[in-house]
């Protein structure tokens, strides 16, 4: 059985996923990442249903959530996570291309723990992703029920 991944990355763009994973490699966190490609799948993963019914129990230490997603968008996913008593303690970091302020305001209103704009510049991008991943998945004390993080440094 696959061990529980500490990071859930929700992003529909395969290239972004690859870049994000390559950035997280710097912290040896790449293997700790579960990737889903749309909002509905993210909720399925968190609720362990559908194709994710067989995943190990427990919540990820952090969810990296893109805003523009097929099916349910990132803000809708965020709202459902924060309204669900069993999920709302999971830190959610909005990881998005958008600098548009209404999105930012809405995200904080719904209870996002951080909001990171993916920089065009790759070096900055790597820096931002590493920081976020490291802080929430490694440094931050995960709430009860989160994965213990096998294979962490």
């Amino acid at each position, binding site marked *: 059985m696959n061990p529980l991944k500490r990071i859930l990355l929700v992003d529909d*763009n395969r*290239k*972004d996923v690859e*870049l994000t994973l*390559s950035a997280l490699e710097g912290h040896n966190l790449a293997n700790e990442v579960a990737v889903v490609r749309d909002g509905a799948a993210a909720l399925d993963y968190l609720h362990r249903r559908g194709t994710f019914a067989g995943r190990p129990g427990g919540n990820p230490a952090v969810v990296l959530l893109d*805003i*523009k997603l097929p099916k349910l968008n990132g803000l809708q996913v965020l709202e459902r996570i924060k309204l669900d008593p069993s999920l709302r303690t999971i830190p959610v970091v909005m990881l*998005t*291309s*958008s*600098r*548009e*302020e209404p999105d930012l305001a809405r995200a904080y209103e719904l209870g996002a723990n951080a909001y990171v704009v*993916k*920089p*065009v*510049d*790759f*070096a900055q*991008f*790597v820096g931002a992703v590493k920081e976020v991943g490291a802080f929430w998945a490694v440094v931050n004390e995960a709430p009860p029920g989160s994965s213990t993080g096998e294979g962490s440094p």
Partner: protein
Amino acid sequence: MKFEDMPIRRKLTLALMLTGGVTLLAACAAFVAVEIALFRRSMVGSLSMRAQILAANSTGALAFEDQDDAREVLSALRADPHVVVAVLYDRNNAVFATYPAGVPPGALPAVPERAGHRFTRSHLLVYQPVALDERWLGTLFVQTDLTDLWDRLQLYALITLVVLLGALALAFVLASRLQHKISQPILALAGCAQAVSDRKDYSLRAAAPGRDELGRLTDAFNSMLAHIQDRDAALRASEERFRTMADTIPQLAWIAQASGQVSWFNRRWLEYTGGRPGMDWQQALDPETVLEVLPRWITAIASGGPFEMDLRLRGVDGRSRTFLTRVQPLKNENGEVVSWFGTNTDVEEIKQAEERVRLLNLELEQRVRDRTAQLEAANRELEAFSYSVSHDLRAPLRHIGGFVNLLRKSAEASLPPEGRRHLDIITDSAAQMGRLIDDLLVFSRMGRTEPTLEAVDLQQLTQEAMAGLAHEIGARNVIWNVGSLPVVRGDRAMLKQVFANLLANAVKYSRTRDPAVIEVGSTRGEHDEWIVHVRDNGVGFDMEYADKLFGVFQRLHTDEEFEGTGIGLANVRRIVSRHGGRTWAEGAVDRGATFYFSLPNPKEPPV
């Protein structure tokens, strides 16, 4: 007829005759009284003397107790037919003899009274003592009737009556003549007053008879008439002026009595309504509005307050027009309404114009709503566009940069230097495009977002912007001269962007100077507006291109000289103009540049 109501002529005659009559009557009465008194005295004297003579003649008869002789003496009284009875009493007061003889003793006084005389109602009584040589022998009693006295009295009365009547007749004639002198001026005055009152002719005058009180009264009356005549003339002139004016004004006008009954219409009214002078103004009301108007008019009459409303009056052509109707109560000094003065001003065209304006306004409002809706739709589309740009245009750039970097990691060692340079160019271009997109998005957002107005301390914004440039300045020698800056009303985030852009420009374009001197300050302009300037001693610009500075993507330098997207100043202009201010710049090549922007006074809040 009561005395008060009698004509003055008769009053005077009566008074004169009464006075004369009473005086005459009093004189006659006094005369008669004196005459009667004298006559009575002579009667007494005559009878007493005869009694004394008889008494002297009867002494012998009494002394000798000769009754026959006594009767003989008494019979001498026969000569006087007025003697009713005579008695001779003896010393013992017993009847000794009587005249006429044989008078029954019951008809006689039983005993004689004291000597003297006495009048009864119809008789004169005399008691005379009979004495001889101081020796009292008896008493003689004589009684006469008063026929003479009464005859004389009747005569006097007759004379008095004749004299009185004659005198009164004379008095009447005289009084009639004399009263004429007094009553004639009064009658003339009264007649004149009556004529003035009847004919309202104040030009009449009463004739003045003399300089007495009546003359003065007549003069006063005439002067009063003259005064009234003047007033009357002035009143008529005023009335004439009023009529002329009322007939020339374009308004319809009328005057009504306190009851509301119209007593006069001006010419315009009669022309417009085609009515007659005796009509009532309500008759000209449009039948459809009668029920609306009449209750209010009745209320106004009852309360005595002014009446004002727009109402429709039907013209002689049968068509109705709207009139602004004002009716003002005219009151006397007791505050009671004496009459009403009404005007009807034709406001039909104004009303129609108002209606047209109202319709135009409605149309305009609808157009504004439509246009606003269009603008809002356009804005939403623009937002959606920006959102897409923000997400979808940036993602490929990020991928280009990202994968070039991955390529560099995996294959840099095997690439020739030219290949590595090309990778650098790809990375730079992607990054520059990313900056362009970011700046464009900010610029677009500034155009769409409504400024949130609050008090903003420009001094503080300057300090924040300066702090944000620390990294950019690095080890450079930059001298800041920051003057006093005001607190203004504006959108804090937007104004911060303005200072960030202007100060960043100043720092950037003074890069070649050592030291770079940057001055920030403010002055008061027209209408109390604030003018803020940012001045540097940098490379400056040619004033020929000054108007290009604030355009989007307009640059005066190549990217190699000074990097930039050409959006910063466009953003500044957009933000300032959204605050109701202006932007402009002054400069010269290699002589530095000064950028100005104005912000309106808070008393004139920006739209």
